[in-house]
């Protein structure tokens, strides 16, 4: 009986925490794409931060998806990989988006580096009607320093890591040593989302 109550309590707590996270993911339109902000989401902490302060490159994989039908039907998904390093002398972070040839963004504070990663991932509407309820989900993985095989030439093309490799990463469970953060928002309607910029 006590065990059952404990399980129910755990489930309630998990649901509550998930709801709190969901509130933290804010969505906005930028042109034809949906962008997010998540000021409470921090991944430059713990072991990954320790490795960064030790001069290493730490890689994080991001997945942003939009779903309908009570979060069951995936309508569109964006995947990105970022290589982050910490300048030992400047004491600032540098972020490189590996799927593009863009120059890295340097001299960022920890919070700014996290925000930069989140700002640079966007997903399309996936053909969802403005009045249809949708859910959005952001998943962050990595920081364990075991990305080396993914960096093989088969996975990195002219423009960085291949999309196939990222799909493969997110289709397998995270290893126990790997950082995994999930944040969700929804249900909401695309027609109600405010537009940012022109």
């Amino acid at each position: 009986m006590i065990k059952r109550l404990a399980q129910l309590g755990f489930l309630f707590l998990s649901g509550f925490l998930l709801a709190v996270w969901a509130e933290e993911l804010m969505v906005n339109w930028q042109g034809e794409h949906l962008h997010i902000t998540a000021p409470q989401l921090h991944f430059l902490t713990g072991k990954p931060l320790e490795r960064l302060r030790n001069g290493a490159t730490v890689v994080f994989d991001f997945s942003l998806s939009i779903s309908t039908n009570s979060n069951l039907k995936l309508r569109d998904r964006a995947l990105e990989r970022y290589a982050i390093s910490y300048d030992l002398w400047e004491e600032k972070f540098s972020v490189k988006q590996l799927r593009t040839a863009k120059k890295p963004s340097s001299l960022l504070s920890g919070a700014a580096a996290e925000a930069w990663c989140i700002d640079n991932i966007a997903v399309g509407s996936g053909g969802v009607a403005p009045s249809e309820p949708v859910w959005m989900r952001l998943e962050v993985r990595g920081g364990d320093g075991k990305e080396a095989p993914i960096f093989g030439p088969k996975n990195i093309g002219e423009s960085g890591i291949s999309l196939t490799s990222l799909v493969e990463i997110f289709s397998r469970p995270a290893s126990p040593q790997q950082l995994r953060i999930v944040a969700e928002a929804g249900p909401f309607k695309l027609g109600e989302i405010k537009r940012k910029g022109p």
Partner: protein
Amino acid sequence: MSSGEQRASWTAMHRLLFLLVLCGALLAGRLPDWRSSDGNQDPDTNVNTRYTVESIDLKGHAAKRLSERLQTELNRLVGEKLDPSRLGRYAEMIQKELRAKVAVRVEKGTQQGNVAVAFEIDRPTRVGLDLSAPKLTYYSNEGWSGFGQATITKADNAFKFGLVSDGDELTERFTGIRAGYENKFLLSDRVGFRFDYSNYRAQWNSATLNALAAGNQLGGPEGIYRTRESFAPVVTFALAKPLSLSVGVDFVRLQSQYPSANNESANAAISTLRYSQRWGDSDQGRHAKANDEESTDLTATYAIRTAARTLDTDLVYTRHSFGSRFAWTRGANKVIAKFTGGIINGAAPLFERFSAGNMQTLRGWNKFDLAPKGGDRIATGTLEYRYDIFTVFYDTGAVWDRGTSPSQKHGAGVGLHFAGFQVAVALPLRDGHMTPVFLVGTTF
């Protein structure tokens, strides 16, 4: 050619082989290091790669046991730009050598633009246990052969214990135990010590018994034996990076079978000169396949065993053997060329005699058809091409006795080869009938 002339030509030949090994070793010191640096030096992914390594510090009790070679390589990093992936590889090498956990710390240096690197080495792992099967083969002419071994390691010491049943290597099937102790750090990393003990019971093929009986050699010191016991202390010196020399004594006691149970000794001074070098990708294999990288491996060994009266031996002989292996790899393509040669002078016991027609040499042939009691001369060669897991090979060679003419044999085959494990069908190339031989197994 008279036997005296033959002896002179063979003596000249093995001197030449010895000189070739020596010249190769000396030449290697002058060869350029083709090993490419595949480290991640991309400044886009790590801003710290623009900084210069100011110092390399080794911390921890075990640090003083690090080999001179590795210490020298680490010191070479000073003055170079920081390469985190290269530091990671060195940490792995230290971990492997000292069997201890290693952490790398990078901090700001004393001058602007410099960084200080520290390798923090933990205490060595207390006791390690490793179970392995260095040999497990099936050759349809001989049946199964296997060698299973347990190794217990503590710091630089390794204790080994194994069970063997081998019908592949020699004309006898030997079954028994093998045990040993090894220390790779005897006062210095350039000197190692080991002793090996083995105790085998020998089983003989009827072809061997018939051949010995025909020559009236069944009994006596050169005849068959029931058991074979060996104790061999050996010291190994790392002369230069690719060259090592092992020196020791092998005390062998044979319990002969005819005319009655009697103990014979075949005590020999042993000496092995080994040259092993690799050029190209250091982590060959998986990465070489993926990256289409090129690597070249060369291994050459010369061994001499001299049983002299001074060692209180019943059998007096000298056995020279030479082996070389050249492998060139590019991506999934691999070409391997191997050569073995050997000469025995004097009255050697049967386990010292050369045999071919097994998993390594003249595959496809039955060793009891080639030389049922072995030979005191051998010369074999192999040319093999592998593409990914597919392999095709050609073997040639001969085993013969002094005073007789060698009869060169040829064999060829196809098969699969992956992670040291091979499955193949080999054919002896000869006039008349052709009997394919199936072979499977792993030999390290």
